[in-house]
């Protein structure tokens, strides 16, 4: 009945194919009473969710377990949501169109702070109370993971338990325990008190927080000594033997990353000081060339994709990347399967690799110098010089590219007006470099896009103590740049800094934000990550009515303050972050830690080995 109701509604909405499921390689299972049903929720639209590699991996991990059926759940776009609410259609799973309230566990992946209201929307559309305390035994257990879970506190009263770190192994352990729950008829509490003892699991209700008069945290800890004081993230030690799906789901509609994805390593050794991913995904763990090539070829065979993307942080840092790409191209060029890479660092290897890649298909090019001035690049430990930039751009222009996108940030610590201004210089320089290419080698007119984001300090980075720029400061810098850029060949892209401010609040937020979040949702906030739906005024109204000052979360913090996420151990030691903070302020470059161990502690503490 629900299935037919949904079918009728799909005739009336935009891009219905994103809701039908039934894609090649999606999993079908017979529904039995023994089956543990898991709703894997990506609280954004299908096109975004399907582009997220981690979801594909965990979908595979869960469905490999015989008595587990993992189905996907995405946020419906506004037009469908309206129809669903009109016709009393509850939130449903993509695979079987089942009411998500019938799932045993709903797992939300937290990929960016600005989708938290969408989580509430999904729960609301399923008639599930927001707060853990208000839910009964009849409701599914709500869990969450993903990069934002490293500061779980803003969602602490909503989520029953968080999984920190890489999920391949811990998901199996969670489901093993859930099987026991089913068998023994445990209550939720009986389950949660046990799941809290699994490494990497955080059950917020077993932890208490007290505050000082100045609203900073006075103490934080477990309510019972049996629960761990600190929770260490989980990692997979050997990527070569780790689970990796070959039967990727092939979407019908155009998704954001509509291509085969092969992860080639985890972690990053570059040590960029602004970069949360570079800290939380440590240590570096590579897959071997043979494993990558074999996996890639299997994925192509199982999906029929026409493009293959190698994914990781700083992809070209893989020690055998050139040979890997050469092999992949050799294997696939006859079938016109192209190979693409995410944004590139600015260095020599990029050019060599690009020469290979363009043999099949020519893709757009994005480079990330991150900052305009050399001083700022030293502050953030980017390790890229102006000479590197010049050389790389000259070479790619010489190879026939005429369009490049350059990615920067403003609002970085110690930044001056001059530093911001130099972003424009980089753009001009790129245009000038293009004109140095002999006319006969040029392909059309040059187009340089300067994409300039607003910096958000994130937990577990050396910049976690820094004060974020205010709205006014961001705007002033954006206008300054906008006025300064006169070159017609340069396009200037910049976001509304209001979204960055809100992101900053939630990134470094604490439990007191749960009520703000619920209030904002009640006022109508959702899809906050979509500029056209983001309503800053409503958010401010929500903060106001909850008596919470957003500035409190964006302020500068002292090294001895208890941070809301201090009880989580990502493997990178606090002393290291403080040392790097000092280096940043003094514009000292420490460089890639492959060549020069900086003692972050991740290998020693997490795996028990030297780097």
């Amino acid at each position, binding site marked *: 009945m629900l299935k037919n109701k949904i079918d009728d509604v799909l005739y009336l909405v935009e*891009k219905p*194919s994103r809701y*039908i499921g*039934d894609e090649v390689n999606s999993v079908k299972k017979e529904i039995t009473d023994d089956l543990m049903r898991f709703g894997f929720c990506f609280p954004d639209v299908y096109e975004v969710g399907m582009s997220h590699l981690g979801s594909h991996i965990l979908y595979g991990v869960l469905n490999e377990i015989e008595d587990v059926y993992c189905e996907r759940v995405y946020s419906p776009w506004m037009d469908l949501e309206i129809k669903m609410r009109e016709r009393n259609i509850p939130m449903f799973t993509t695979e079987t169109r089942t009411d998500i309230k019938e799932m045993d566990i709903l797992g939300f992946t937290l990929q960016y702070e600005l989708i938290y209201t969408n989580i509430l929307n999904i729960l609301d559309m399923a008639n599930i109370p927001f707060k853990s305390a208000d839910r009964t035994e009849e409701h599914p257990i709500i869990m969450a993971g993903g990069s934002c879970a490293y500061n779980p506190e803003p969602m602490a009263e909503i989520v029953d338990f968080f999984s920190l770190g890489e999920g391949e192994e811990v998901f199996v352990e969670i489901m093993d325990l859930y099987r026991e729950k089913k068998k023994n008829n445990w209550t939720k509490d009986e389950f949660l008190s046990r799941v809290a003892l699994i490494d990497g699991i955080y059950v917020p209700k077993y932890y208490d927080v007290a505050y000082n008069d100045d609203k900073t945290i006075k103490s934080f800890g477990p309510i019972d000594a049996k629960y761990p004081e600190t929770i260490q993230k989980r990692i997979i030690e050997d990527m070569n033997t780790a689970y990796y799906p070959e039967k990727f789901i092939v979407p*019908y509609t155009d998704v954001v990353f509509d291509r085969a994805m092969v992860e080639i390593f985890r972690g990053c050794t570059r040590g960029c000081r602004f970069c949360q991913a570079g800290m939380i995904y440590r240590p570096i763990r590579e897959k071997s060339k043979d494993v990558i090539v074999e996996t890639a070829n299997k994925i192509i*065979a199982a999906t029929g994709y*026409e493009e293959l993307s190698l994914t990781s942080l700083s992809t070209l840092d893989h020690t055998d990347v050139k040979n890997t790409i050469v092999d992949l191209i050799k294997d696939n060029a006859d079938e*016109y399967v192209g190979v693409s890479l995410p944004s590139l660092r600015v260095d020599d290897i990029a050019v060599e690799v690009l020469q290979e890649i363009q043999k099949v298909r020519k893709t757009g090019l994005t480079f990330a110098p991150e900052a305009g001035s050399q001083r700022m690049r030293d502050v953030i430990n980017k390790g890229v010089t102006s000479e590197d930039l010049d050389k790389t751009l000259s070479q790619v222009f010489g190879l026939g590219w005429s369009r490049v996108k350059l990615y920067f940030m403003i609002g970085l610590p110690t930044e001056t007006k001059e530093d911001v201004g130099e972003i424009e210089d980089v753009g001009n320089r790129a245009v000038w470099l293009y004109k140095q290419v002999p006319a006969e080698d040029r392909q059309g007119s040059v187009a340089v896009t300067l994409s300039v984001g607003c910096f958000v300090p994130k937990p577990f980075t050396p910049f976690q103590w820094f004060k974020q720029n205010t709205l006014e400061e961001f705007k002033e810098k954006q206008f300054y740049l906008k006025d300064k850029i006169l070159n017609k060949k340069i396009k200037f892209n910049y976001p509304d800094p209001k979204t960055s401010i809100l992101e900053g609040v939630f990134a470094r937020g604490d439990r007191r934000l749960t009520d703000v979040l619920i209030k904002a949702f009640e006022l109508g906030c959702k899809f906050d990550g979509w500029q056209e739906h983001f309503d800053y005024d409503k958010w401010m109204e929500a903060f106001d009515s909850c008596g919470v000052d957003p500035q409190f979360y964006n302020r500068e913090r002292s090294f001895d303050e208890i941070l809301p996420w201090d009880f989580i151990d990502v493997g990178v030691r606090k002393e290291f972050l403080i040392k790097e903070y000092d280096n940043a302020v003094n514009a000292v470059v420490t460089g890639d830690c492959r060549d020069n161990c900086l003692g972050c502690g991740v290998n020693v503490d997490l795996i028990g080995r030297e780097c």
Partner: protein
Amino acid sequence: MIILRIKYIKENNMKFLSHLELIKTLERAFRRMNFKMAFSQGFNPKPKISYAAPLPVGVETECDYLDVELLEKVDLKDLLDNQKDYLPNGLEFVEARYRDKSKKMMALITDSEYIVKLSTEEVYTKDSMQGKLDAFVGQREITYEKMTKKKKLKLVDVKPYIQKFDIVSIEDNQLTLKCMVTTGSNGNLKPEKLAELFCTYAEINRVEGKDRYRRVALYTRDRNKQLITLFEV
């Protein structure tokens, strides 16, 4: 040059695919089937596949055709026998034949036949409905104002484009019709438009969002203007 002509069904969930999504879905299916497809030249090579008559989102078909150009022949029995392993549910190949290079199919199509299901607000008897239908097709001309490409309104008479228009069944408020309409460059009438013109003329109120269309035949014409299928060309 090897050209494989395939007649296919697109139904159930697959009706929600747009034409562009269908193209992508079939390209990927052919890759999974290990087809050695011929590709276009240039920066962004595309396999050479052409389609007879693109359908709008929501419309099913049991009779559409595509031509795919191959570098190596595939075994057609294997293709039909094993297709389920490669195609999503709702897409099915009914028939496949190798053919000589021919005119683009899109230019060949002259007629198409549809089953049209409408939900009416009132319940009609078959006789009264037949009366309405006879009166509708019996008009001297059936006209509407069409927006031209130059954004001007132009009166068109679609009566010559209605080859057949019959009642299949009436059950409660479910009216099922069958129509054959002219399709292609020498005149084109969409079944959605025909249903709209008929309902407006006969003062039939439809339940909104409940029209269902399914293409059941696609034809071209031979030298004697007789209907033939695209395999008979």
